[in-house]
Each structure stands twice: as structure tokens, then as C-alpha cells.
């Protein structure tokens, strides 16, 4: 699915200049609500947000390697995200 839109929030609503990680959580191809945790390169907790009603989430972070972990009733899933530079946007799709 290289190049496919991951289904995160509307990028035009990102605060200018922020380094952003965002995306959508799905189960069986459908958006699902729950929580998303952001872990740093050592696996340490950095932040957590509830998803929107359509499974979307957004973090303002910094450049580097991160793990994004989705928690939904009855399941969890991790994805590794690399943010190349300050001010960049990384989109990530998480299927639980």
C-alpha cells in the first residue's frame, strides 16, 4: 500500500512548524476507537491520546524513531515510525 493515504486527520489543521505523527486505527478494515500511546526510541512512554470517533489520532513530537501503540477493547498493536526531520509529518496506519 506504499503511497496510500493512511487516513489520519486533515493535515491542514496541523499547527504550523510542528513535527507531527498522525494516523488512524482500524480493525478488520474499519475505523475503531480506543487509545494510542507514543513511545520513544527506548520504549519509554511519551504521550497517549484517545482516538477520534473515526479512529484518528495526532501527536506533536520531534524527529527520531518512535513506536506508536494502539489499545482497543480486546487488542493492542505496535508500529514503528521514523520522523526524518523537524517539522515533518509522518502518517501511520495501525490495523489491530
Amino acid at each position, binding site marked *: 500500500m506504499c503511497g496510500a493515504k493512511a487516513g489520519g486527520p486533515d493535515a491542514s489543521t496541523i499547527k504550523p512548524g510542528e513535527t507531527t505523527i498522525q494516523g488512524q486505527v482500524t480493525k478488520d478494515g474499519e475505523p475503531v476507537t480506543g487509545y494510542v500511546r507514543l513511545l520513544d526510541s527506548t520504549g519509554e512512554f511519551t504521550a497517549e*491520546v484517545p482516538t477520534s470517533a473515526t479512529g484518528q489520532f495526532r501527536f*506533536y513530537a*520531534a524527529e527520531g524513531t518512535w513506536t506508536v501503540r494502539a489499545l482497543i477493547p480486546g487488542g493492542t498493536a505496535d508500529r514503528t515510525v521514523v520522523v526524518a526531520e523537524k517539522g515533518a509529518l509522518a502518517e501511520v496506519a495501525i490495523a489491530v
Partner: protein
Amino acid sequence: MSRSDVLVDADWVQDNLDNPEIAIVEVDEDTSAYEKNHIRNAIRIDWTKDLQDPVRRDFIDQEGFEKLLSAKGIANDTLVILYGGNNNWFASYAYWYFKLYGHENVKLLDGGRKKWELDARELVEEVPARPETTYKAKPQNTAIRAFRDDVVAAIGAQNLVDVRSPDEFSGKLLAPAHLPQEQSQRPGHVPTARNIPWSKNANDDGTFKSDDELKELYAEEQVDLAKDTIAYCRIGERSALTWFVLHELLGVENVKNYDGSWTEYGSLVGVPIELGANK
């Protein structure tokens, strides 16, 4: 003090939803979360509008707290059960705040709103009505509240526990990663502080780790709990959770929460600041 004196689990709350002797109170960072839905019969306290002075940077005074709790239908002998999002950050803050004004009969819902949601338990939109009371608060118990001068005096002398994420501690970020990066004038941490992120106290579902796991955590991080301790974060809510762990779960005396936290300390003129990771 045992865990059951300060914590209840979701099953206990489920069994007590209609008990008029208790008040279930949601306190969220996202103050609109309650409007979407909440635990049945829960009322809301808004940490920005209800708990802060509208002009000065400080809490509402004793009289203000009396008015607030009276209007919310909470009496002096009401058992208050607090819960919220963000792994109970703001519910812990409200717990500490209730203790600050002398309300003893208060407990946290272990895991807060997240555990309740991950258990797929019922949430409703209906807002309950509680009859008004005449609440009497006590003067602030500043034995559990630290101010900026206490923090400066504690450098190298007491335990300073910085509970923010490692990137906030080192100076890479100024605020948690889900919030815009603004606030204090300078990044970094108070010299001699140990970085023990609040998240190490909790499981993924937001419940607290066991007493043995928590004792081991602070021992491993070389925090001598025989000494006085000040916990801080960015605005004092995550550190209220660590205060809860140390003071309420582990029964450590002389633990204070610094609610001014990094947004105050990182904007003070002339105080020492350190950059870099935990040593």
C-alpha cells in the same frame, strides 16, 4: 493505609453507581470529554474553570472550594470517587486538591476512564442532578504542596522527582507530545532531580502497578524515601499521580506536589537549570 482506603476498581464502581452516599466525579484534561459521555451518575469538575482562580495563577481559595463542592452536591461526609482520562492524571490532581482542602473521604477509580472504556462498560450522556449541600473546607494543608522556593531549597538536599517524559526532562521537548510545544521559557530540569516518568507507575490499561513493583521502581532509581520528596512535572497533574503513589499507596510521609512545576520553574529568572538525560 492500604490500597482499598484510596483506590476502588471498576467492578466496585459498577456495583455502586446508584449509591446516593457516593459522588462519582469525572475530571479530565479534555474538559469536554464528559459532554460526549461519562459513567452513569457521574458529575463533572472542570480543572480549568472550577479549580483555578480566574485571575491569578493559583487555586480557588477555601471559600471558593466550599462554594464549588456545595453547588456540586458534595457534603463533608460524601465518599468522592474520582476518575478521568489520561491515566487519571487530572483525577489524581483533583484527589490531591481535595486532600489539600481537607476532604478525607476520597478515592480514585483504578485505571480511570481508559480502563472503563477498554472494559467496554456503559457510558451515558445523561447529566445527573445532586441536591446542593453546605460544604465546609479546611485551610490548605501546605504539608503536601510545594512552592518555588521549596524547590530551589531542595536542590541537592531533598529528593526531587521529575515525572515528565525523558525528552521533556532532557530539554528536547517542552510539553507532552500530544500538546503544542509551548509554555516555559526554558527547557530542562531542576538540578539533582531524578527523572522517573509517571508512566512507570502504571500499567498500559492505566491501573497502578503493585506495591512491590512500585517500591522496586523507586529503589532502583535510588530515591531514598527516608528523605523529604518533591514531585513536579509541567503543570502539576502528572506529579499529582506520583504524589498519590508515594504518599497514598506506599504511605511515604513528607511528599509534596509542586503544582507550579516546569511552567513556573522554567520561566524563573536566575535559578539553576540542567540539560541532558538522567544521570
